[in-house]
């Protein structure tokens, strides 16, 4: 009941703030959105004041929803599970445009020039590309694999040069779509990379694309600076033949930040992180963790990585030092920690605690709880500074 009242209060507050702010000048560099996964809504937050600026409803099925931002950091493009692509004006707190572009989707990316928004689809599979201004369709790229079958796509990221990289989940392929010469994509396909690649991401310099495999123990590495492109297996057989634990939540490859010398990658079906040298891509260590890692998010300076865990061990966060590869802190944040987002230079980290209907704000150096916001079933947290980063 308390939750309902809080949610209603937030709606009312949002309306008041929007009205009050209509004539007030402000920037957007310290804003962000929090996905409310069960209400089909997002909450717009001010990360300086730790306050709620507004709330936007009518976004459909928001389980696993994510967002990218326009170059001016005023507009958010929100990707819903139901194929909805919604453009939100953060200053006015309203939907600018919404299209249902597919039956079932899993995230998206925005091109480096800010003109194209690409969406990764499960049904009908493939990737669709839209004009970021109007959300009019620009390109439809079905993912028909080498075996002739359509594939779900995952791990979609932007690459420098108006390109996108993504992974074909069913087929085990990595594709790069180059839209630098207008609207007809030129595709580069790397086939036979491994079984069931569940996610992919690119390093913050846009150079190294990594795809995690679910169907076998290993990660696929592509050095995008070396033509012709080659999919190279790293961390091969990291499970050493041991039986995987049941995986109750797929890990994600997100938030490497500027990790310096090592990258920490979730091991699938194991209570550990795999440490990889950021130049040689050889394994340099393992860090035992509280549960199966879901997100391993680097603080923007790269010194610490915060890790959350799969159900049912999802109330806890481990913090790992990337210099010593040792855990330096463990905290219990609350029931169902789903996502973590650092402020742009890493002084705070915002944590969504789904079953507590709360976003908790921690000092990223002292680990002290600094504040909290009431948000109904929060999941993904996305700050506008993502607009300035490659591979978001």
């Amino acid at each position: 009941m308390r939750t309902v009242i809080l949610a209603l209060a937030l709606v009312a507050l949002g309306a008041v703030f929007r009205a009050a702010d209509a004539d007030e000048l402000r920037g957007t560099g310290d804003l962000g959105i929090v996905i409310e996964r069960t209400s089909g809504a997002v909450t717009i937050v001010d990360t300086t004041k730790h306050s709620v600026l507004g709330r936007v409803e009518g976004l459909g099925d928001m389980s696993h929803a994510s967002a990218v931002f326009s170059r001016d950091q005023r507009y958010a493009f929100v990707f819903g599970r139901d194929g909805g692509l919604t453009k939100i004006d953060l200053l006015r707190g309203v939907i600018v445009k919404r299209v249902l572009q597919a039956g079932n989707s899993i995230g998206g990316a925005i091109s480096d020039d800010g003109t194209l928004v690409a969406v990764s689809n499960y049904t009908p599979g493939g990737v669709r590309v839209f004009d970021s201004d109007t959300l009019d369709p620009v390109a439809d790229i079905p993912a028909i694999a080498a075996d002739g079958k359509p594939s779900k796509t995952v791990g979609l990221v932007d690459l420098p040069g108006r390109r996108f990289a993504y992974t074909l989940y069913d087929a085990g392929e990595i594709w790069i779509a180059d839209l630098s010469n207008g609207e007809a994509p030129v595709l580069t396909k790397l086939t036979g990379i491994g079984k069931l690649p569940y996610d992919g991401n690119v390093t913050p310099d846009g150079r190294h694309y990594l795809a995690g495999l679910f169907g076998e123990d290993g990660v696929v590495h592509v050095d995008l600076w070396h033509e012709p492109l080659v999919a190279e297996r790293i961390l091969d057989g990291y499970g050493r033949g041991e039986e995987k634990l049941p995986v109750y939540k797929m890990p994600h490859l997100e938030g490497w930040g500027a990790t310096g010398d090592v990258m920490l990658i979730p091991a699938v079906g194991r209570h550990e992180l795999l440490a990889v040298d950021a130049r040689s891509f050889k394994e340099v260590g393992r860090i035992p963790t509280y549960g199966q890692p879901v997100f391993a998010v680097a603080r923007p300076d790269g010194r610490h990585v915060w890790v959350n865990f799969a159900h049912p061990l999802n109330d806890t966060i481990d913090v790992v030092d990337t210099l010593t590869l040792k855990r330096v802190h463990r905290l219990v944040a609350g029931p169902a920690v789903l996502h973590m987002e650092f402020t742009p230079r890493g002084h705070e980290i915002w944590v969504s605690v789904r079953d507590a209907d709360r976003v908790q704000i921690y000092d990223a150096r002292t680990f002290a709880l600094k504040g909290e916001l009431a948000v109904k079933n929060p999941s993904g947290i996305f700050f506008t500074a993502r607009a300035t980063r490659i591979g978001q």
Partner: protein
Amino acid sequence: MGCSVTASAAGEAIDAAKLTNLVRQDCGSCHGLTLRGGLGKPLTPDSLADWDSAQLKHIILDGVPGTPMPGWRPLLSEAEAIWIADMLKRGAVQ
């Protein structure tokens, strides 16, 4: 959500609110919050028509080898699994 504890056919107490939340949120992370599918298959009554509750219970408890569907036996009892299977067949979690 307060008084949602019911008894299963086997006489074991079933926490309906807890299981409903589990299905929507945790099954939903792969199968979609509305259970219309995602990385995992749709779990709507139509899409489950070819399986009976006993078969679904088996899949829930032991998973599907070669796919990401895990066995939930470490976390769920037989009675809870059959309760979830029945609920999915009826379309009671939407």
